């Protein structure tokens, strides 16, 4: 399958009060056509900044300081404003976490939809027709009435659907969904996820799905990268991630999930707190919170290495991680793929 997006050693840094916060510090991954790629991690691990970097929407004073982002072979990092504009919306779109603040409160939904068609030579009527079609596609009832309304008149789920409609307006090949359901309650969450899955099938889109919810990853993704402190700690297909995690952090995350088989047991949390991204030190960023840390972990940062079958991990203790058990049984070679 052709590679749609190749991120190579992306670095996005933020100068802050004399220090440098390394929000994204050497992230590399590839996305193929039609694939759903999950990016999971705690708040502050850099997943949002990866998304923003891909579309060159990093908020000042942050900037991409190194690496390449190749979209169909062209490097986004080096593009000028015109080229960037042709990519945004038309090739790559994004939907943000908070629909209330992501939609302009003083413009009607119609105006915000029509904007997507800026630069095309569609007539007003055609734009209206297409806009209604989009709203219908995302499941907004009575689109003819609702199209003239404003953000504050929509419910949370509706707003998110409207944002999806807008993002899909110009038929992008890649949709970046940054925590699309975090701000919604669980029933709506489910609806939106199902909507995204359906749209992905119909429109044959690739999706980068950013979340901190492992359940969503399991439901939607083909491949996953686990991020921590601006770096990818583990990357593999979704089944392998849950059946054979190969990183202490991933393992700890799974361990902290509520387990229906272990009713009555204490929930296990990961001790410690996320690190200061301005002051990481030479070793592995997870080291202070890792049960298996040794001297080497403090002095040298492990590289992301491939351990077989498209599965990479960033850890010195490959011996230890090889024995980790996941939360689902491992597929036997006969059943696999």
């Amino acid at each position: 399958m052709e590679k749609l997006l190749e991120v190579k050693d992306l670095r996005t840094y933020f100068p802050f009060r004399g220090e440098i916060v390394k929000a994204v510090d050497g992230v590399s991954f590839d996305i193929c056509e039609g694939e759903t790629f999950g990016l999971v991690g705690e708040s502050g691990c850099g997943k949002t900044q990866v998304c923003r970097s891909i579309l060159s929407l990093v908020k000042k004073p942050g900037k991409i300081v190194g690496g390449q982002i190749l979209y169909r072979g062209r490097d986004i990092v080096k593009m000028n404003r015109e080229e960037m504009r042709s990519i945004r919306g038309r090739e790559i779109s994004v939907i943000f976490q908070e629909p209330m603040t992501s939609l302009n409160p003083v413009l009607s939904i119609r105006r915000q939809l029509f904007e997507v068609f800026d630069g095309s030579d569609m007539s007003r009527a055609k734009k209206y027709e297409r806009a209604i079609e989009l709203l219908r596609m995302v499941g907004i009832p009575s689109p003819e009435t609702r199209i003239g309304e404003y953000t504050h008149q929509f419910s949370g789920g509706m707003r998110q659907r409207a944002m999806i409609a807008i993002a899909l307006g110009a038929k992008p090949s890649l949709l970046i969904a940054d925590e699309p359901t975090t701000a919604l309650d669980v029933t709506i969450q489910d609806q939106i996820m199902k909507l995204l899955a359906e749209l992905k099938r119909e429109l044959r889109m690739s999706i980068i799905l950013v979340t901190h919810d492992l359940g969503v990853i399991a439901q939607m993704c083909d491949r996953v990268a686990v991020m921590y402190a601006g770096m990818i700690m583990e990357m593999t297909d979704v089944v392998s991630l849950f059946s054979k995690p190969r990183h202490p952090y991933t393992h700890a995350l799974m361990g902290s999930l509520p387990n229906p088989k272990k009713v009555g047991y204490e929930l296990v949390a990961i001790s410690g707190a996320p690190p200061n991204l301005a002051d990481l030190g030479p070793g592995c960023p997870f080291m202070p919170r890792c049960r298996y840390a040794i001297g080497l972990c403090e002095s040298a940062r492990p590289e992301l290495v491939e351990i077989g079958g498209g599965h990479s991990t960033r850890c010195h203790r490959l011996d230890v991680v090889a024995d980790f058990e996941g939360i689902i049984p491992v597929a036997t070679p006969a059943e696999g793929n």
Partner: protein
Amino acid sequence: MVRTGKRPRLPPWLVAPAFVVGVLIVLASFVLAIVPGKIVHYGPIDVDTTARMVAPCVAHPFGTDNYGRDIFSRVVYSARIDLQIGILGMIVPFVVGGVLGLLAGYFAGVLDSILMRIIDILMAFPFTILVIVIMTILGQGIRNVYIALWLVGWMSYARLVRGEVLVLKNCEFIQAAQVAGFSTRRIIFRHILPNVISSSVVFAASDVVLCMLTGASMSFLGLGVQPPTPEWGAILNEGRGYISYAWWITFFPGLFLAVAGVGFSLIGDGLTDFLRTKGR
């Protein structure tokens, strides 16, 4: 984000050059106001008929007017009056308006409605018109300038404080204090007041400038300070008739007025930065 321990430094807002300049200017004006005699040679109303309409020179750095009075002395002696107008004109509305806003915001109800109605009605008049009308009724003179400023100035503070109190009233720590049975007086003065006062303090800095300018405007029109008392606006007015050939009479008092205004404004800006770093 946890920061590693650093040497304690003076906070940035305090040493910002703008703030320091502002403080210096204001201090300098206080010096002019308090000990004018030490700075100038002549008295503010000393007449010297041999030196009329003299252009700025060594003996008279700001020149003289048509009575031969040294403009430099007049300008320096004016500082006292203008600063008084600025500061005293601000203080009374600050206190009265602030208290009214506090009470109206906290107790709401009839008190609040009445206060807001009064303010709405008075706000229908342009500020300068209100001041002029009050001066018309009371008559000329500096004392009436104060009264006019006091009668008009309190409204801004009342609205500011009231707005903040209304927001704060719904905060949980206030509700907690109420439930805990703290006396109303204690809640208002120890819990609410410290939190709502900051926007008023910032406004007060620009209000000093406004009061000075208004007082000077009234004197400029002939309604405020009466001759021969030196006041920056009044001196400007005196020079109006001679602008084509004695520019110095109008230039210097206005310059001092502007610089004093800049000084207080810089302090106000510094205070805004200070409050911003405190997370308001």
